[in-house]
């Protein structure tokens, strides 16, 4: 299967029969699905070591009472909400205190209107975060100013700071306030977001595994 560009050359402007377009669209969907599956799979393989380190740090923070705060803008805001929901209310496994900082429109609009959009996450961390909590920020570009600013605030408050980014990390890759940056090396925004979601899901699975092991160790020590 080719993954080259689809220029839909057979369709002239006046073309009205959709059959040729539909066939081309289906081939395009398959090619993009192949790209997505490959990027998700290579990202998970390439980041396996980083994922294990981040999961270990998160699991030990959670075991010590740490809470997870997630944030991002636009599509990344929805992915942040999805990640918080996965941790807080998984279909199976241990529920962990986790919530997204994009959920409350009153807080978001108050901060954006009264101060500026660059503080919408950092100010919430000022109000809520304690040492030992976890900040996970998502940015497909890696450069969202309000996400970077939240990492600065998170570090100041003694949080574990984790970034999920596209484009090899962007500004997040060199952000000094970030403990870990999990980056996708994708060219397309859409394929990158899909791979970011695969990373986030893998992270959740690893943390669940580690929490299970830590709980078993605890109960053996207390016996």
């Amino acid at each position, binding site marked *: 299967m080719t993954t080259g560009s*689809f220029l839909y050359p057979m369709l002239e402007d006046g073309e*009205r029969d*959709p059959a040729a377009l539909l066939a081309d669209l289906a081939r395009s969907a398959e090619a993009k*699905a192949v790209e997505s599956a490959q990027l998700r*799979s290579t990202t998970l393989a390439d980041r396996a070591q980083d994922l294990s380190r981040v999961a270990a740090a998160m699991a030990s923070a959670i075991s010590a009472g740490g809470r997870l705060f997630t944030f991002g803008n636009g599509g990344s805001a929805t992915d942040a909400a999805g990640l918080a929901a996965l941790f807080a209310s998984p279909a199976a496994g241990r529920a962990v205190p986790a919530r997204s900082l994009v959920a409350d429109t009153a807080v978001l609009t108050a901060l954006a209107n009264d101060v500026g959009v660059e503080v919408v996450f950092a100010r919430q961390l000022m109000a809520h975060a304690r040492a030992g909590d976890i900040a996970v920020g998502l940015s497909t570009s890696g450069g969202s100013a309000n996400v970077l600013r939240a990492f600065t605030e998170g570090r100041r408050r003694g949080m574990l700071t984790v970034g999920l980014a596209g484009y090899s990390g962007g500004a997040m890759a060199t952000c000094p306030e970030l403990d870990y940056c999990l980056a996708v090396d994708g060219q397309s925004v*859409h394929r990158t977001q*899909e791979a970011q979601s695969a990373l986030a899901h*893998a992270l*959740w699975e690893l943390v669940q595994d580690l929490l299970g092991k830590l709980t078993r160790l605890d109960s053996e020590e207390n016996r």
Partner: protein
Amino acid sequence: MTVAAAPDLDPATGFPAGLAQDLAAASLLLARRLHAGGTLWCASPAWPHHAQHVAVEFVHPVIVGKPALAAVALAAHQLTPTARANMSPGDVLIAIGPADDPGVLDLVRRAPAWGVTALWVGSGDRPPAGSADHVLWLPNDEMAAHDGRFILLYHLLWELAHVCLEHRGVLEPEPDCDGPVCITCSDEGRLAEVVSASGPTAQVRIDGVLEEADLALVGDVGVHDLLVVHAGMAITRLDAAGATRP
């Protein structure tokens, strides 16, 4: 955490047979509705963030130069009443959720009465055939909602719909009566939602249009009940559990 495919999925795409074609057809339908002034309504009671992701994708595209399109995420609270109040004939619903999601089931079964085209994205056990105009489904895997594969499906809808929108010639809707049998005019029962009832007749909504229906065969009905209406006569009442369409 692997992206391994189940045996009945294409190992390269991770898609079951026919999904790429379903995506293509759904995208063309969506492009036609949006081109004609329709709105895309996104609903996901189980995973509200997916509904919001679809909406933001269409309203504020990540690719510079692509036009903003009318899409809205519906909140899970009071989903059906909010949808009923806001949706117009010619709109499109994209519902994201498992086959047994009661909120999604209620929306997709009412959509024909409202004149709304329904797309249903999900994974696991597949809904019954005909539950929505297009069912875009990843079988056998509950994790698809979380590991990027649902996002892929609606990203593809966005990408393919934009390709269609660049081919103006295919955007004109297909004529309703282009063959020997026309569904609108033929002997077929049509789904109706009761708007108000008084005595022997009810005002009902069919394909988004208000009509009178004779209740002699079905007896008393309540507001928002679903009926099958044939030639102005209500012939069946659909109970809440029956998700099938007439």
